[in-house]
Structures are given as structure tokens and as C-alpha cells.
């Protein structure tokens, strides 16, 4: 093990001691991930499987999952890397919590989210339905919110969590819109059926573009990449999992899953090529001068997923196969590198390249295995990474000379920044003391490094998985055949020139530093993160302006409901032909009594508007209630009248009891005379708008009562329900479910009142 017996700082030695006990929760998560890995592997080797059963049949939603090649690849990656990262996390989280002085119970805030994330990834990988895809897509975003914000005491962690959530969830809405568009046009959410049914056309193009936006944002591609470097505020296991093989992979997975749809539109594919190319260059150049370990890896991830988006943009059999292979090789190498960075930080307490160095002698094993993972990322021979670049170059060559040149530049950048990362970390003069790190922090890195090397020697398992996955995303047969060729074929020449250019970039540190710094500053000043922050601030300002206006006092809160309602009704009237719609019927017999009562209501309402005393208002208000109850009784609704009378009485009593507890003074006594007058005018206008709208609506309705078949139907069916009184039968039977919900609300409301009055004691 990479353990140094030396003068270890006291504090760090203490943190290495298992004071919080075994993290059995983490080990359970790891074991579960391993079990799912074995199940998926077994399921795929025995020919895959598919299940589909109704979820919400009225909405045409089905729970349909299939373990096809693409699903198997991502599920195996998520659970395989997950097993190792979770094992690593048991060690890391213990140290992390002890370092921050947090109790062992905080593990419950971590592992359930991690496990749920793994489940969501497996679900996402196997989902065959656009809505299901959206659900799992958002589930991963919600999990990532809690995981990135795990150190909730730190402001930057909270901001980073929110940023990751907003960017990925808001763009996920694009996916839902696309799903609805496609459903409206083709009548299904099922992805295989959509692929079979869609043709070219504007709907397909728009839907494809929206799907691509969702995927690109999730995979942290330019210009929606800015959340990923911030998300490095997460604990290292989260970064090693979410930001190498899971969350960012989810975006590319969606692109792969719907790739046959994207291929229907050349514009969308071109867009993917542009976004991928920009991400490769911007991520790679920025990675060249990052100082913080995890930031190097974050920008590297942006760049590496740029490769993938580029390959899916190229499309073709070569592009799809290469992309599938690339995801696998990159995920393995990148999570190893993240875990190595975490192990170094645990050992030294430093997370900056400028303060680290010469760790190779102190931690030889970690240096070797990290070197292997880095070599795989940099595509050196004898690692699986070599093949990923070989396939990438083949696909790029097929797309034209410009793309081929971009591919070489991409590989050179990767070589340069990852070599810099490793050299500054493990070579040179030791700058810091390195304490002990437990085996569990190094072993997972070693396992992934060994996998990378084995894949470099025997690429067949990777290749067969990539073949199956590429076949799904391409929508046609293809084979991925990685192999070493000792000849002067273009791929080999491209690889050689990439290493040479990469070496040059490494040597020419000054100009590279300027370029990288210039790009970073330009990004800070004009970049999309500024737009995000400005947008967020503007939204906050609007929100607080509305809030201030609405809740200034009780009257403004009421006006905030009444005035918009009145204005909306007025708008509805403005666009509806109303000529001749308003009628007044003949007045005869009992109507005169009703009219008298309604006239009383009008007079009383005017009295209330002028009343200054609350007691008067309440008592006079009850007059309106009783008068209206009498009207109900007269027009033949005795049930309603009975309830109106008893409720009105009760309400007045409760009102009076509540009023007795209010202060006697007028609430606006502190205001100026001018403000008071203005407020009164505002109240009059708000009341008039709302009142006129209601008047017009009710009159319009009474002029032309809707010819309802429901009412006569209910009356006809009442005897069948053993009833004579329609109203009671409606309440207890026909609309019985509504009644049950309403009475539940009644109890909830009284609990709310009690919570306000007596801190929740019911009696």
C-alpha cells in the first residue's frame, strides 16, 4: 500500500483513525451495486430482456424497460464504477465527516441519495419511453442536488448544487416538451415506435433539437458547461461517480438513446458537432492551467464529453460505435483519476497542484495506478484508452479533414493536461508531508487502472459491449473492432502527431498559460455563467418586487387575488361576443320577495363599505348571509338554505370571538393622511374591478343557464341510490370522493389553526 511511515501531522493521524465506526451503510450500497452489476451482466449475456406494463393507461404511459446493448453498457458502467466508488466512499466519507466534526448520522444524508442515483441511472439506461426517460433524468438531477450540496454549511456547495439543479432540470424540460411534441404528432411515447414512425420534418427537427439540448446540458457541454466546475464543491466520491460515469454520462446516454431521431435532421447533427468541438477546445484549454486537482478533472470531463457529442454529431456507424466504446473507456479512467485526487487530498490536506509534488516516492502504488489511468485517458498504447482514440480518429476521418484536424487537436490537449496533472502531482520536489491513506482509498483506483490495462490487452469484452450499444444508437448493424496495427495507417499517424503536439504544449508552458488564462478571463467576463447569474438576480428582483407589493397589508393581499381575477374576466368578456346575451326575465309572484331581499343585500353591502368599526362590519355582514339564505329557501334549495343559516350563525360567532383578540386601534393610524387617502382610493378601484367582473359573470350565466345534462342525469339516478334528496345523494354518493377529500381538508385546516394559536396542542 502507498503508506508512508513518517512524521505524520497529528491532526491527520487522528482523522485516519476510525472514530465514527464502520460505514456499513456505504458497504451495503456498494454490495447492492455489485449485485445489480452481476444481474445486469447476467441478463445481458443471456440475451437481454424487456418488460413493459401499463403505468397510466389513460395517458398512454407505460413502464417499459429493455436491457439492450445501450442499456447494458450504461447500466454496467454505472453499477460497476458505482461499486468501486461506493467502497471508496466508505473510507472517504468517514474521514470527511471526522474532519468537519460531523456525526456518523450524516451518512444517512449521503448514501440513500447515492444509491437512489445508481438506481435512477440503471432506470435511465434501460427506459424505452420518453416520459420515463424524463422522470429518471430528473431523478438523477434531484439526487445530484443533495449530493453536491452535502456540505450544506458551505455557501459555495449550496450555490453549486442549485446551479447544477437549475441548469440540468430547466433543460430537461426541453426533453418533456419534445416528448409531448412527438406524442402529438405520432401518438406514442415509446422510443422504438417513434424511431419506426418518424419521418423528416419540422416537428421531428424541433423535437430532436430539444432532446439534444437536454442531453448537452446534462453532459456539461458549452455553453451550458459552467455548472460542472462549480459542482466540484461536492465530496470526492460524488465527483468520481456523478461527474465521470453517471450524471454527465446521462446526457450522452439520452443523445444515444434517441440518436436515430436526431439523425433525421442534418441541422441537429451539425449543431452537435459544433457544440462538441467547442467543448473539446474550451474544456481542454481551460484544463491546461487549472490549479485545483478536481478542477483539472472537471474541465477534462467537459472536453471528453465533447468528444462524445462530436462523435454522435458525426453519426455514421463509425461514430456511434466509437462513442459507445469511448464512454466505457473514459468512465473507467476518469473515476479512477477523481478517486486518486481525493486520496491525495486526504493524505496531504492539499488540493492544489502548486502546493503538491513529488508524491511518487511517498505513495508509489497510487502514483503507478494513477499513471495507468492517466495513460488510458491520454490514449497511450497498452491501455483501453488507445483504442478509444483509434476509433475516434477513424470516425473523425470519415467526417472530413476539418474534423480530423480537430480530433488531433483534442487528443493533443488531453495528452498535455493529463500529463501535466500527473507530473506535477507525483514528480519533482516533495512540497508537503503525506500522511497515511487507508487501503480502501487506493484499492478502487488500482482496480480501475487494472481494468484499463486489461482492456488494452484484451479489448474484446469492451468491443462486444460497444458493438451492441452502437447498434442501438445507430439503428443499424455495426461492429467495433479495436486492434493494434503496426503500420502507417492514418489513425496511427494522427495518434503520433497528437502525442507530439501534446508534448509541445507541455513544454511551451508560457504561451499555453497565456492562451488558457485569456480564454478563462474572456469566459469570466462574457461567458454563459454571467448570463445565468444575471438571470437569477433579475428573477429574484422581480419576485421580491411582486412579493412586496402583494403582502404589504391584508388589503393588498386580497387585491392581489381579486384584481387579476377581475382583469382576466374582463379580458374574457372583451373577446366574447355578448350582444343580446344579457336578458332580464319577467318579475312575478315570489320574485318580488327575492328582489326585496337582494335589494337589502345591496344596501347592506354599501353600509359595510362605509363602516369604520369591525364589530359593525361583522354583524352587518351576517345580514347578507341570512338574506341570501332566505333567497335560497325561496328559489327552492332548502338544503342549501339550511346549511347557509347554520354556517352563517357559526361563522359570525367565530368571527366575533376572533375579533375580540385583535388590537382596538386602526392598523393604518401611523400613516400620513395622503397615503391613507391613496390607499382608500386603491381599495375602491380594486373592489370595483372585482365586483363588476363578478356581476357581469353572474348576470351572463343567469341569462343563459347552461343546458346541463348532468343535473337531470343526477336527478334520474337518485332513486337508484336509495335516496330522495338529490343534494344529499350527490354529497354522499355521486361525488362521495370529493366529500372525503373535503372533510380531510377540514381537519387539516383546524390543525393549522391550532398550530398558529396554541403551538399544535389540539386541546
Amino acid at each position: 500500500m502507498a503508506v508512508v511511515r513518517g512524521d505524520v501531522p497529528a491532526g491527520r493521524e487522528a482523522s485516519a483513525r476510525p472514530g465514527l465506526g464502520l460505514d456499513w451503510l456505504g458497504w451495503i450500497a456498494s454490495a447492492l451495486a455489485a449485485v445489480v452489476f452481476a444481474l445486469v451482466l447476467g441478463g445481458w449475456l443471456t440475451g437481454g430482456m424487456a418488460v413493459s406494463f401499463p403505468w397510466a393507461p389513460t395517458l398512454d404511459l407505460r413502464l417499459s424497460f429493455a436491457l439492450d446493448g445501450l442499456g447494458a453498457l450504461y447500466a454496467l458502467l454505472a453499477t460497476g464504477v458505482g461499486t468501486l466508488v461506493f467502497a471508496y466512499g466508505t473510507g472517504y466519507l468517514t474521514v470527511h465527516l471526522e474532519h468537519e466534526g460531523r456525526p456518523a448520522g450524516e451518512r444517512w444524508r449521503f448514501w440513500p441519495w447515492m444509491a437512489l442515483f445508481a438506481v435512477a441511472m440503471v432506470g435511465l439506461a434501460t427506459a424505452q419511453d420518453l416520459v420515463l426517460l424524463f422522470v429518471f433524468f430528473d431523478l438523477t438531477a434531484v439526487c445530484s442536488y443533495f449530493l453536491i450540496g452535502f456540505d450544506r454549511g458551505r455557501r459555495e456547495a449550496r450555490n453549486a448544487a442549485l446551479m447544477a439543479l437549475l441548469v440540468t432540470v430547466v433543460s430537461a424540460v426541453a426533453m418533456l416538451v419534445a416528448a409531448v411534441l412527438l406524442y402529438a404528432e405520432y401518438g406514442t411515447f415509446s422510443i422504438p415506435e417513434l424511431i419506426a414512425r418518424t419521418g423528416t420534418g419540422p416537428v421531428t427537427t424541433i423535437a430532436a433539437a430539444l432532446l439534444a439540448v437536454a442531453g448537452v446540458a446534462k453532459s456539461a457541454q458549452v455553453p451550458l458547461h459552467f455548472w460542472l466546475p462549480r459542482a466540484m464543491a461536492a465530496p470526492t466520491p460524488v465527483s468520481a461517480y456523478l461527474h465521470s460515469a453517471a450524471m454527465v454520462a446521462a446526457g450522452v446516454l439520452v443523445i444515444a438513446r434517441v440518436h436515430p431521431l436526431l439523425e433525421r435532421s442534418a441541422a441537429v447533427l451539425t449543431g452537435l458537432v459544433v457544440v462538441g468541438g467547442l467543448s473539446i477546445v474550451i474544456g481542454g484549454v481551460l484544463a491546461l492551467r487549472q490549479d485545483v486537482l478536481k478542477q483539472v478533472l472537471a474541465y477534462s470531463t467537459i472536453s471528453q464529453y465533447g468528444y462524445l457529442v462530436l462523435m454522435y454529431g458525426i453519426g455514421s456507424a463509425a461514430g456511434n460505435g466509437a462513442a459507445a466504446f469511448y464512454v466505457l473507456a473514459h468512465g473507467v479512467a476518469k473515476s479512477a483519476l477523481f478517486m486518486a485526487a481525493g486520496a491525495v487530498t486526504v493524505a496531504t490536506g492539499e488540493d492544489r497542484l502548486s502546493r503538491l509534488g513529488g508524491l511518487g516516492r511517498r505513495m508509489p502504488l497510487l502514483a503507478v495506478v494513477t499513471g495507468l489511468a492517466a495513460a488510458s485517458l491520454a490514449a497511450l498504447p497498452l491501455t483501453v484508452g488507445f483504442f478509444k482514440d483509434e476509433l475516434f480518429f477513424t470516425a473523425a476521418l470519415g467526417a472530413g479533414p476539418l474534423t480530423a484536424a480537430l480530433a488531433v487537436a483534442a487528443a493533443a490537449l488531453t495528452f498535455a493536461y493529463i500529463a501535466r496533472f500527473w507530473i506535477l502531482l507525483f514528480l519533482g520536489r516533495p512540497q508537503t508531508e503525506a500522511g497515511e491513506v487507508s487501503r480502501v482509498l487506493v484499492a478502487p483506483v488500482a482496480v480501475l487502472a487494472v481494468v484499463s490495462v486489461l482492456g488494452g490487452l484484451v479489448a474484446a469484452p469492451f468491443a462486444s459491449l460497444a458493438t451492441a450499444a452502437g447498434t442501438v444508437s445507430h439503428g443499424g448493424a455495426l461492429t467495433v473492432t479495436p486492434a493494434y496495427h503496426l503500420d502507417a495507417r492514418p489513425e496511427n499517424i494522427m495518434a503520433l502527431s497528437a502525442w507530439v503536439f501534446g508534448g509541445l504544449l507541455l513544454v511551451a508552458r508560457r504561451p499555453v498559460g497565456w492562451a488558457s488564462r485569456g480564454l478563462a478571463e474572456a469566459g469570466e467576463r462574457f461567458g454563459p455563467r454571467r448570463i445565468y447569474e444575471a438571470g437569477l438576480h433579475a428573477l429574484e428582483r422581480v419576485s421580491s418586487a411582486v412579493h412586496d407589493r402583494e403582502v404589504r397589508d391584508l388589503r393588498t393581499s386580497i387585491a392581489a387575488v381579486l384584481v387579476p381575477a377581475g382583469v382576466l374576466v374582463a379580458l374574457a368578456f372583451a373577446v366574447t361576443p355578448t350582444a343580446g346575451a344579457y336578458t332580464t326575465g319577467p318579475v312575478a309572484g315570489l320574485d318580488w320577495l327575492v328582489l326585496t331581499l337582494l335589494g337589502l343585500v345591496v344596501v347592506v353591502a354599501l353600509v359595510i363599505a362605509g363602516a369604520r368599526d369591525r364589530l359593525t362590519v361583522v354583524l352587518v355582514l351576517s345580514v347578507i348571509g341570512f338574506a341570501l339564505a332566505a333567497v335560497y329557501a325561496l328559489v327552492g334549495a332548502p338544503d342549501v338554505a339550511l346549511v347557509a343559516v347554520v354556517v352563517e350563525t357559526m361563522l359570525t360567532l367565530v368571527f366575533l370571538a376572533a375579533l375580540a383578540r385583535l388590537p382596538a386601534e386602526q392598523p393604518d393610524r401611523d400613516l400620513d393622511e395622503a397615503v391613507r387617502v391613496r390607499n382608500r382610493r386603491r381599495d375602491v378601484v380594486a373592489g370595483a374591478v372585482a365586483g363588476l367582473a363578478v356581476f357581469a359573470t353572474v348576470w351572463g350565466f343567469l341569462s343563459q343557464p347552461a343546458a346541463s345534462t348532468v343535473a337531470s342525469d343526477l336527478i334520474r339516478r337518485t332513486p337508484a341510490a336509495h335516496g330522495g334528496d338529490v343534494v344529499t345523494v350527490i354529497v354522499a354518493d355521486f361525488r362521495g370522493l370529493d366529500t372525503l377529500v373535503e372533510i380531510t381538508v377540514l381537519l387539516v385546516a383546524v390543525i393549522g389553526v391550532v398550530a398558529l394559536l396554541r403551538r399544535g396542542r389540539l386541546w
Partner: protein
Amino acid sequence: MSRRERKRPDAVVRVVARMLLGPVLMVAAALIAKGYAEVGDGFGAGVAVSLVIALVYVALGGAEAEAALPVLRHAPKLAVGGLLLALASGFFPLLLGEPPVSHRPAVGEHVVKIGALELFTPLVLDVGVFLLVVGVLTVLLHHLARSDDEVR
């Protein structure tokens, strides 16, 4: 707020308020029993009973009312029990594999009648609503009456 001098309500009101409790329970029973055929249901019956309880509160004052009618302190249990009863009457068909609020006896089956009282599951719903309304309103009255004395 300085407490204003409160005149004790008239002796007649104090006596009548307590005596009304018996008759109003009778009225409530009638409202529920004949609710399916004529005007009235559990809700109206519940509010009517609560009105008399409110009258007792007004006539005797919070503390004295609860001393005179110690049964009032079971109001929260009454409310929760009533809700559970009503929900049970609505959701029991789920256990039989039928949609909720499928009342028994079903359409067209014979209903046992005792005078105007029909024995079927909507009656349970009505009784549940009645208990809930009485319980909820009594809890409200309790708090509005008591907190004045306690808070100040």
C-alpha cells in the same frame, strides 16, 4: 388590550343554553336519519349541535362551560374518529376490489328500513361527517374561548 367589564349573561340564557343540548341532539339525529329522503345531512346536523355548544360557551364562559360539560374535552378524538369513520365508509370497497365510494347495499338491492332510517353505508359517512364537524368546531371554540384568558 384591557379586558372590558363583562356583564354575566342573563340567568335564563345560562339555564336554557344547557337545556338545549338534549333537543338539539334529537334534531341532529332526525336530520341524519331522514337526510337521504328529505332536507338535511350530517354536516348540517353537526353545525347545529356545535351552535348549541357555542351558546353554552357564550353563556357560561370558557372555563365554566368545560367544567359543566366535561365531555367536551374529547372533541379532538371525536374529530379524528369521525374522519376515520367517514374515510372507512368511503374506502372499504377497495378491499373488495371495487372503486371507492361504492355504497352497500348496491343499486337495486333491498335496503332495511326502520321507520325513516335506512340502514346502508352512506349513513356511516353521514355519522362520520357529523362527528368530525362537531369535533372540529368544538376545538375551535375551545381555543377561541380559552386563549383570551390564558394569553393575557
